[in-house]
């Protein structure tokens, strides 16, 4: 049997060297044609032909020729026996390249935009293009895109400032040594540079070593000059990332000395690639914006700086849920009350998203308002319960096509506690909320036993107060169920863990916050988390003085004298005049309209507080005194002289308080 050892090229592009005779697969194919006596087709890639003998073999695999070789048996016309194999080779590089591009585009459809993350999407573009299309790819975006803002529509002109978000190179190893700009770095592209030109035109730009603009651009940047010299970058394509009519950034594709320059055909490919990547980036940007909006809304609803007060030292954390679930309805608050007391609030609106956040905002405002009225915790929750019931009914009226409203029901829990640093008593009331934990100064930590109470919005069921006397320096921990409850852990177990964390080594409140979050937070929290820590302070005898007063008008003078005596002992003689007036007004009112026992209390804290309490529940009100009225001016005077006054009810009667700033010094 005779085998044809050499093919005959019948193609127009005659190539005497292709394909290489040593190709194993080709020889196997020739044998099969001879044995099976049937024609076959063989396709192969071979390196770029060497034009001159002795020239170096090309290093890069990016530029091979594609060959299609037809093989057929050659028969002896007489015997019909196969005597040889005829071959004809065609250069099919163009079709091959077209198919490769198609494959790349198809892959782009599945590989770019797998997440809603701007940076990740940009990186996917760079990863896909290297090494199949370029040796080095960089993706730069406008800063506004990274923030999720809407960039200005249309092309960007003049010098552009862009931030590097992704790059990739064919170099081995982890790093990208070719990059002149680090990830996250900012670079300014002069108007004549290819990236700036492509942004200005809105079309991809092909440039390279022969282009004076390219040379000027490279020369204008020291690191870039060094990199180009080192790696021999000679061909570059810059393409804008445009989606929905807005320009987001620019992708730059580069080839180094090992690869041939880009061809005009490649421009179409990168334009297409960049278009797909841009849509992915824009989707991610829009998502970022929506999420940022929701988080901003929630942040604006949560306290930023808690008000200054002396009753407790606080630290707090709020963590939104992981990306999936969106923002939530957890909140916390610290509200200063009269008489140096403070209200500590933590609550949770069931559900996620803007709707939960908005409801949370309403409830938080309501709690603050009710707290200002100085309602006892159980009464406050009753009012809040009513409010939630009303909100639910309101929302049932909204049309069913209204987005975001799943149902009219609002599920919410709340824990409201009032701490009085004078008596050191903390009064808690809970509406179905996770109970707080307390760490006593002796190092024991436990969960505060509370009546759990019904959820807000259930209506009609009573809330109960629980009182707890706390030694000075006790640490209260309030949290939402996102912290203590997890898929693999029930609330009880979580609260025990919380107690263990509290009982750990004594640290600052901020550190304790971090320790607790670290120990209790699941890896990817499915619910948002609020944590509020409060270390109690106490007002001592040198800051508080309380006296009992008989219901006898003659006592007013003694009360004034006692007030001056006390202020002198506190070194606040300057405040004596005003305080005496306030005391005599309030005491006179209590004697005239109130019921025994009558008490007078002075508190020296951030302000000077004067309180008169009596056993009657009738609250005073400002009256407009007529010209010849003898009475009716007292409270007006108190209101004028002090920085604030108010009244609070208690089971034993009422207290009128007035607050004035401490004298300077």
């Amino acid at each position: 049997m005779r085998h044809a050892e050499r093919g005959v090229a019948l193609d127009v592009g005659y190539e005497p060297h292709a394909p290489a005779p040593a190709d194993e697969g080709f020889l196997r194919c020739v044998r099969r044609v001879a044995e099976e006596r049937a024609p076959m087709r063989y396709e192969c890639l071979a390196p770029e032909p060497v034009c001159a003998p002795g020239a170096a073999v090309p290093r890069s695999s990016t530029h091979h020729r594609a060959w299609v070789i037809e093989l057929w048996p050659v028969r002896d016309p007489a015997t019909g026996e196969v005597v040889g194999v005829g071959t004809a080779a065609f250069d099919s590089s163009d079709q091959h390249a077209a198919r490769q591009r198609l494959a790349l585009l198809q892959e782009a459809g599945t590989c770019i935009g797998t997440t809603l993350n701007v940076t990740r999407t940009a990186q996917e573009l760079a990863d896909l293009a290297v090494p199949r299309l370029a040796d080095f790819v960089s993706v730069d975006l406008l800063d506004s895109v990274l923030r999720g803002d809407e960039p200005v529509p249309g092309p960007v002109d003049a010098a552009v400032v862009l931030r590097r978000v992704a790059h990739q190179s064919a170099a081995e190893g982890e790093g990208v040594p070719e990059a002149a700009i680090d990830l996250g770095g900012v670079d300014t592209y002069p108007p004549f540079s290819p990236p700036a030109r492509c942004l200005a035109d809105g079309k991809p730009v092909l440039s390279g070593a022969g282009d004076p603009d390219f040379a000027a651009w490279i020369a204008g940047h020291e690191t870039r000059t060094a990199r180009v010299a080192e790696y021999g970058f000679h061909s570059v394509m810059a393409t804008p990332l445009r989606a929905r009519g807005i320009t987001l950034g620019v992708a730059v594709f580069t080839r180094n000395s090992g690869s041939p320059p880009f061809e005009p055909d490649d421009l179409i490919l990168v334009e297409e690639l960049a278009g797909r990547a841009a849509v992915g980036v824009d989707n991610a940007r829009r998502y970022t914006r929506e999420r940022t909006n929701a988080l901003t809304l929630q942040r604006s609803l949560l306290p930023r700086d808690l008000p200054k007060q002396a009753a407790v030292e606080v630290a707090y954390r709020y963590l939104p849920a992981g990306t999936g679930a969106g923002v939530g309805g957890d909140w916390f608050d610290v509200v200063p009350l009269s008489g140096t007391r403070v209200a500590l609030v933590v609550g949770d609106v069931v559900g996620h998203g803007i709707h939960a956040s908005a409801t949370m905002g309403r409830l938080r405002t309501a709690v603050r308002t009710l707290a200002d009225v100085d309602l006892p915790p159980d009464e406050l929750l009753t009012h809040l319960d009513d409010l939630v019931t009303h909100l639910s009914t309101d929302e049932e009226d909204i049309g069913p096509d209204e987005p975001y409203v799943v149902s009219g029901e609002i599920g919410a829990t709340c824990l409201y506690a009032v701490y009085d640093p004078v008596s050191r008593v903390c009064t808690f009331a809970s509406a179905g909320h996770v109970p707080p934990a307390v760490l006593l100064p002796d190092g024991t930590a436990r969960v505060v036993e509370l009546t759990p109470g019904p959820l807000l919005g259930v209506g009609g069921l009573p809330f109960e107060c629980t009182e707890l006397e706390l030694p000075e320096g006790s640490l209260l921990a309030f949290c939402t169920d996102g912290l203590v409850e997890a898929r693999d852990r029930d609330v009880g177990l979580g609260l025990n863990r919380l107690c263990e964390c509290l009982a750990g080594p004594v640290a600052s409140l901020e550190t304790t916050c971090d320790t607790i979050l670290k120990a209790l937070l699941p890896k990817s929290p499915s619910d948002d988390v609020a944590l509020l820590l409060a270390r109690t302070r106490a007002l001592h005898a040198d800051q508080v003085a309380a006296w009992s007063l008989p219901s006898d008008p003659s006592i007013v003078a003694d009360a004034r004298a006692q007030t001056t005596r006390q202020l002198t002992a506190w070194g606040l003689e300057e405040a004596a005049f005003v305080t005496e007036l306030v005391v005599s007004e309030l005491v006179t009112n209590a004697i005239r309209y109130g019921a025994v026992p009558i008490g007078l209390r002075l508190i020296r804290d951030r302000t000077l507080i004067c309180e008169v309490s009596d056993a009657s529940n009738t609250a005073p009100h400002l009256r407009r005194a007529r010209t010849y009225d003898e009475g009716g001016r007292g409270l007006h005077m108190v209101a004028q002289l002090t920085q604030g006054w108010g009244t609070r009810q208690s089971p034993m009667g009422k207290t009128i308080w007035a607050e004035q700033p401490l004298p300077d010094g």
Partner: protein
Amino acid sequence: MAARPRTDDSGGGTHTLGLLYPPAGRLRDYTTMQLAFVGGVAEAAAQQGYDLLLAPAGTHDDPSFPRMIDDWRVDGVIVMEIRREDDRVERLAEAGFPFVAIGRNHRADVSGWVDLDFAGLAGGCVQHLADLGHRRIAFVNRSEQLFNSGYGFARLGDEGYTETMKKLLLTPHTYLCGDDLASGEEVVEKILSEDPATTSLVTMNEAALEGVYRGLTRHGRSVPRDFSVVGVAASPWAEQVNPPLTAAEIPAKEMSRVAVDLMMRRLRSSDSPPRHVLLKPLITLRGSTGRCQPVPGSEPENDLPDFPGLELDF
């Protein structure tokens, strides 16, 4: 012999004031209250440009008394803790020596004095307990010896208590009690055996307070839940007992200052009429009084509604 000071001009004398106080008591220690007065007078005098000469003299026989007076070593004398019949005051008044008394008796009226309104304070204590709903209020006074012979405040306190009780149509029960722990226990024993339904007491006797608390605890009365105790006038020490005693605080500093002021007035114009200052501090609420809880088994008190479970809110 030193020159007699010119009484019309404070600048001409010795620029020294004398302070007479009784020698240390049984325990050879001065009380915090006595020391507070000595310190207060010295401070106030220094502010006026005067030095202070201290003389522990309970009677005119104590040797430091004649040394100070007869030799005119001081411009004027402030006398502390005067008794109803006090020969120091007697001698000073006779000699026409400028003096001011902290405390008072009939002879001291010729000169200036500053004192607490013990009658008013004791009455205020009764009123405070009555405001809390108490109707059976006992009064614990100082020792019998002190009451009969000694200091006026024991009698004044007694009068104030009795008068206010009668005004409120309540029956007064007064008890004398030694200045010690055992007497405190005894007096509680006596009060509760005479009227087991007693729910409160007013005390003049700080020294016996621990004993009173102990006696109440032995009878299963917890202060302030089942039994209220209020002090007529107490030193800052009242804050240290458990529960801290609700009582009017003796304003030692203010009394000292007023005494020195009165002395200055007397020295500047000797013919000005004597001024008498009566202070009435308010009852400082601490932890020993609460709403009246009727004693179980005692007859119901129908004249007033009671408020079970309520406590004074401050």
